[in-house]
């Protein structure tokens, strides 16, 4: 999971449900990017800190050389590049990113790619969150303005 998706899912109040139902990895660089918000008391940073302390979010080290390659090839920050690098190295791992460059790098490298909206719908379909919680999460994601409205609408249809 990259910093973008961690922040969005935390804002949508479903990050903990994700961590309860999937094994979620972050790299030290992604963790650092999210935790930069702690100084400003951003709730997403505080939540990620707690989930990491409780071992619900796992921090694993990336391949430095591969991370550097992605940083150069795609002009990505260390966090985003590291999460692409780790997904290439870890077999049977999905990459969760809502970042344009991260998604581009994942697609070019044939990685199994996810976005935050699918995660919300999946949690609802697996009965891990209620319809109300899924609807609220989608509303928050819509308000964050990160996604095209047709994607939010499609997700709403799935939880209707």
């Amino acid at each position, binding site marked *: 999971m990259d910093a973008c998706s961690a*922040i969005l899912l935390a804002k949508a109040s479903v990050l903990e449900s994700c961590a309860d139902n999937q094994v979620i990895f972050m790299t030290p660089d992604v963790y650092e990017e999210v935790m930069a918000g702690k100084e400003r008391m*951003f709730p997403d940073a505080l939540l990620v800190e707690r989930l990491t302390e409780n071992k619900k979010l796992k921090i694993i080290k990336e391949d430095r050389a591969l991370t550097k390659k992605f940083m150069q090839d795609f002009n990505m920050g260390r*966090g985003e590049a590291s999460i692409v690098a780790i997904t290439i190295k870890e077999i049977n791992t*999905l990459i969760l990113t809502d970042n344009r460059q991260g998604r581009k790098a994942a697609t070019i490298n044939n990685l199994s790619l996810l976005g935050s909206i699918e995660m919300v719908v999946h949690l609802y379909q697996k009965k891990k969150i209620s319809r109300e919680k899924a609807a609220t999460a989608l509303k928050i994601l819509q308000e964050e303005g990160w996604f095209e409205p047709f994607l939010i609408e499609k997700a709403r249809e799935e939880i209707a």
Partner: protein
Amino acid sequence: MSEAQFLGARLEGDIIQMVEKTAQEEHVDKTKALKDLIILGRKQFLIRRYMELYRGGGCSIDQAAKEVGLTVAEMMQEASRAGIKSTETIEEYRRGLKLLA
């Protein structure tokens, strides 16, 4: 902040007025007002520059945040304000859901 140095620059009357007005409003001297405006202007300049780069697929949001000196969360808010959306398509969304099933 590094040691102050002298920089000669020719400024138009309306820009000088801008500096004077800022100094008055903030109750600071003109040098301080000019410095504040330059720092703030530079930040806005970088935000605009890196938002355009991000929009065009030229850099990632964390790279943009690093270059501008904001957190990723703050840079995401800037992207939203600039109307920049995720490039995710319906097909990608469907594929993502299948992967999780």
